[in-house]
């Protein structure tokens, strides 16, 4: 790649430095991280810019191209998740944060926000994020609804007697009824997840369901000591709901959902 040639230095300065997040300086010698793919550049290495006990995780942008490819997104997450895997505190920056040069990273970002970063890293000490996705399975929930709702059963029977391309409005009516019934099930099921898992977490961040079959997408900030209890509770829930709700647990990952909260004062007040 000729992009790294000395002649291109002026251009390179303009491409900037991609910043993944902020960690303690003591973590900043992580060799496993240094060899991971970087955002935006095939040949760049992950590096650390230290300042006053903290360090920014960065890589140089050597190519002139927009960020946001699937590989870019994966690289961003992979670097941060590797750092978080050992339950070291990591403050993720939002995807796409680029500073002008290494000096800007140290003097503007780290120096400017130093005390806030230190406090936030302290708050995240010894914990990592686990993200649970819960989805209704196969026909189980639809059968459940048909059992509970005579109207839905009746509509379904009427439709089965019509030719396939007829009964458009009745189809919509049935579908709407089913969709609304799924919506009504979502709240108690999401509440059950909360009841079982939230007591084992330091903080909880739930997202709006973004698909018809979604029950919940919840991120938990979990301390190292409670990791096992948390994972066992999730497994218990998955066993109990087997065949009805599918549970998928990602983690430990970097505390993406809690970074802003950590800066503001996590679990305080």
């Amino acid at each position, binding site marked *: 790649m000729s992009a790294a040639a000395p002649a291109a230095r002026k251009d390179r300065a303009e491409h900037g430095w991609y910043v993944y997040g902020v960690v303690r300086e003591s973590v900043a010698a992580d060799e496993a991280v240094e060899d991971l793919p970087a955002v935006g550049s095939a040949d760049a290495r992950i590096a650390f810019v230290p300042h006053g006990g903290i360090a920014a995780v960065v890589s140089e942008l050597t190519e*002139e*191209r*927009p*960020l946001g*490819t*699937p590989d870019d*997104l*994966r690289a*961003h*997450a992979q670097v941060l*998740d590797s750092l978080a895997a050992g339950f070291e505190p990591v403050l*993720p920056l*939002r*995807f796409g*944060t*680029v*500073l*002008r040069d290494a000096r*800007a990273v140290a003097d503007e970002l780290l120096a400017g926000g130093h005390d806030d970063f230190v406090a936030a890293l302290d708050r995240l000490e010894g914990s990592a994020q686990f*993200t649970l996705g819960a989805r209704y399975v*196969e*026909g*189980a929930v*639809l*059968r459940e609804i*048909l059992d509970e709702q005579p109207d839905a059963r009746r509509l*379904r029977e009427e*439709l089965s007697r019509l030719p396939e391309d007829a009964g458009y409005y009745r*189809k*919509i009516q*049935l*579908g709407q009824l089913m*969709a609304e019934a*799924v919506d009504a099930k979502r709240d108690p099921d999401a509440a059950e997840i909360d009841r079982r898992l939230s007591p084992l977490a330091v903080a909880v961040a739930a*997202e*709006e*369901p*973004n*698909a*018809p*079959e979604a029950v919940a997408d919840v991120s938990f900030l979990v301390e190292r000591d409670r*990791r*096992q209890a948390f*994972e*066992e509770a999730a*497994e218990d*829930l*998955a066993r109990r709901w*087997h065949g*009805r709700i*599918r*549970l*998928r*647990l*990602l983690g430990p990952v970097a505390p*993406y*959902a809690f*970074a*802003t909260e950590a*800066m503001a004062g996590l679990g305080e007040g």
Partner: protein
Amino acid sequence: MTVAGQGVRYLDRPNSGGLVEVIDLILDKGLVIDIYVRVSLVGIELLTIDARIVVASVDTYLRFAEAVNRLDLARSGTETRGLPGMMEEIQEGGAEHKAKGVLKGAKDKAQEFLGSNEDEDDEEEEAEYEDQDDEDQDEDQAEDQDQDDQEEPEPEPVRSRRQSRTAGRKGRAR
């Protein structure tokens, strides 16, 4: 794995998420720094909007209705023919559309910021998607939605204003 359970595990524990999961994980999350040396914050607004699309439409209702019609009530177990495919179709159709929207959004935004227009990237990204499309019977549907998105008139004045402000900031930072 620390918690290797006894026997069968019911909890799905992937080592790393797929692309859609990664997007869900990092999207709209993390600290936003607001200092003048910031060169770019790529795609954030569009990423946010596209990810929040909740599928609640006639289209969804029709799919639900079809799923219910295919349900074989004579069978009582959790195992059904036809329906699992249906639910998956709903899931994949939605997820794929989201991923497309998001990445297009990111790209548009990036171009807005960086002012570049490289066709090579387009091809690369399309290639990635085709891999995912293989099993998606619902592709046409997703394509239609994409086209609809594009046909919508863009809020031009807002866009250009934002662009010029960004350019101004960039100039000052140098």
